[in-house]
């Protein structure tokens, strides 16, 4: 493959400045990790990239295991693979799955893991949870790694300073069979966020803001690195939320250079290196940052002070506004986009120019790989403490893992939630994607901490507003879309 040229997604070959990795010259974080994993560059073709960690879940893996059986091959490096069911898992009880099709998928994953000798975190046990919550919190995802999973939100793990990408099932089979994938190297983009986030504004709002600025395809063809003082001051949970949403602007990867925050988060966790190994690892991980003179194919900077609590009004995550703004009027939308704009609003039952603050909501959802971590539950609890849930609202509060759930209980957050009329459910992807019993009924309006507001995403006909845990909490108390700064 020619290092001087990169095929972009719109099919135009663009000359790039020479980018080097190990062996001298300046390099960005993405290039350093990528270059350290190149097995070979196929001539006028993709790169064969070595993968340190493959995660597998029940939905996108069964056909990959079939491929291995068809070809008569074993899993090449079973000790690099971790599997757990999360999409079909119910959040009300985990003794059984009533839906026979979902149950079969979960059972098939377990059987495949037994057959091929892969570590499997069984539903309902303390190790289980959403992959993108469990991976970082068990330190299965570490700085400098290449990480893949048959799930677009694999970008989450980039927050620890790794190249983490969602892949398809054919590629899952490739990694199972060879611990490698064939990928064309993406272009690089650095997104800088500078300054202090205003009160009531979270990492989720930062991500929703960036998406509204860049559109949901603004980073297609790129791997993004997040940098700047806002990111440096952001908690690990916040960074995981931000990296999680990289895919919603088209970027498969969202990296954040590891620093003291990263090391403090990972240290002592179950699969983190221990003792002298830890010290040695940290020494290596400190080198994982973009060189001062690194060149990116694109670089953008946003100011934290411009970001307010955000909500979406449409059926893609980029169709969003600050919570105190109105939906754009038809005149504000380019003429060529008006048909799709109106069709989104028709589905959402909203009108151009409408203010959404004060709109009654039917469902609230706290959870998902986006906002199912301990900090999200702390934030939610800080808003609802001493108040009562609105009677018109059905609330699903779903921790991202059993570890998160235990920490919620250890910190007494469950009592604050119970006093306010909220029930804490069991770890699951839950209402994010309508593959388990937590579905929002047709026509109902949900305000949700999940990642996608697509048509039918939370259930056929369901309408979704994406927001932060603070905004969702405020809305759960009032029963209408509510600005958390006013609580």
């Amino acid at each position: 493959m020619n290092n001087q040229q990169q095929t972009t997604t719109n099919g135009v070959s663009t000359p790039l400045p020479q980018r080097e990795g190990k062996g001298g010259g300046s390099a960005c974080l993405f290039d350093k990790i990528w270059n350290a994993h190149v097995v070979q560059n196929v001539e006028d073709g993709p790169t064969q990239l070595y993968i340190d960690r493959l995660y597998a879940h029940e939905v996108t893996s069964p056909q990959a295991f079939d491929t291995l059986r068809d070809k008569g091959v074993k899993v090449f490096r079973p000790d690099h693979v971790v599997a757990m069911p999360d999409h079909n898992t119910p959040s009300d009880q985990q003794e059984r799955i009533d839906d026979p099709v979902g149950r079969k998928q979960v059972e098939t994953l377990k059987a495949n893991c037994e057959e091929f000798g892969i570590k499997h975190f069984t539903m309902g046990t303390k190790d289980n949870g959403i992959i993108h919550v469990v991976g970082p919190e068990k330190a299965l995802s570490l700085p400098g790694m290449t990480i893949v999973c048959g799930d677009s939100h694999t970008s989450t793990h980039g927050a620890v300073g790794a190249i983490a990408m969602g892949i398809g099932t054919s590629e899952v089979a490739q990694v199972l069979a060879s611990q490698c994938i064939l990928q064309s190297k993406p272009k690089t983009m650095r997104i800088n966020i500078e300054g202090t986030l205003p009160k009531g504004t979270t990492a989720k709002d930062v991500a929703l803001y960036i998406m509204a600025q860049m559109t949901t395809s603004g980073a297609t063809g790129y791997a993004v690195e997040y940098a700047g003082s806002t990111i440096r001051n952001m908690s690990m949970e916040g960074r995981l939320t931000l990296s999680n949403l990289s895919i919603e602007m088209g970027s498969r990867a969202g990296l954040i250079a590891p620093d003291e925050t990263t090391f403090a988060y990972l240290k002592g966790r179950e699969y983190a290196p221990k003792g002298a190994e830890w010290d040695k690892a940290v020494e290596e991980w400190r080198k994982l940052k973009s060189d001062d003179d690194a060149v990116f194919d694109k670089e953008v900077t946003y100011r934290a002070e411009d970001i307010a609590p955000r909500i979406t009004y449409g059926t893609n995550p980029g169709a969003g506004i600050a919570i105190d703004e109105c939906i754009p009027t038809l005149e504000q939308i380019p003429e060529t986009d008006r048909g799709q704009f109106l069709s989104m609003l028709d589905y959402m039952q909203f009108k151009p120019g409408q203010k959404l603050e004060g709109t009654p909501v039917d469902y609230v959802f706290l959870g998902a790989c986006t906002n199912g971590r301990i900090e999200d539950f702390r934030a939610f609890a800080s808003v609802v403490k001493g108040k009562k849930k609105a009677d018109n609202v059905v609330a699903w509060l779903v921790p991202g893992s059993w570890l998160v759930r235990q920490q919620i209980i250890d910190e007494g957050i469950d009592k604050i939630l119970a006093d306010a009329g909220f029930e804490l459910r069991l770890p699951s992807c839950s209402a994010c994607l309508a593959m388990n019993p937590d579905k929002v009924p047709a026509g109902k309006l949900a305000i949700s901490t999940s990642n996608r507001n697509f048509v039918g995403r939370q259930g056929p006909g369901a309408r979704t507003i994406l927001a932060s845990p603070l905004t969702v909490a405020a809305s759960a108390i009032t029963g209408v879309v509510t600005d958390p700064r006013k609580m």
Partner: protein
Amino acid sequence: MAKEKFNIIQSTCIPIQIDNCNTDLIIPARYLASTTRDPKFFGDAFMHDLRYDADGKPVADFVMNQPAFSEAPRQGVHEIIVGGQNWGSGSSREHAAWAIAGYGVRVVISSSFADIHRNNLLNCFVLPVIVSPEFQQELFASIAADPQMQVKVDVPNQTVTNLATGNSEHFDINSYKKYCLMNAYDDIDFLLSNKDKIETFEGTHPLNPSL
């Protein structure tokens, strides 16, 4: 999944003029809970919630149900989809590519594709063809004027031609993938054939803590 070698495809098209047509629309999540790869199952689920209403009745005004476009793909007929920009965004589900392939489509033309879906299409032997927005809009206009118009996709020469206007564009595909498509060769076969390189690499790569 049958792998048919690519050469020249000339066919009428199905226009799905939806920008940001995400993979949740291409196949809703409830059709993902399958453990097999039955082409008919996934083909029937293709664009399901736009094709059918809540009672399972075809939605008459959706393009795939209109008489001019409702015929199932076969050679020369509806083997090509012309889609809106940012085709296949969102979820990584390869089931979306299985749905397109299962329905019988061999080529998707758009001005832009989401990265993961584009790879998935290629791995399922469906060719994603990236054209300019102008060429894409002209295709939509030509199909609207005459649903019987044909498009020619010449893989060896990497050209796509609107046979109604005669306009043609070059499209990009790397030599390796072109070879795969024209010879029905899989990435996994390639990877399995160079295990020695992988093991050599592992000898120099600091392996992360094992489980």
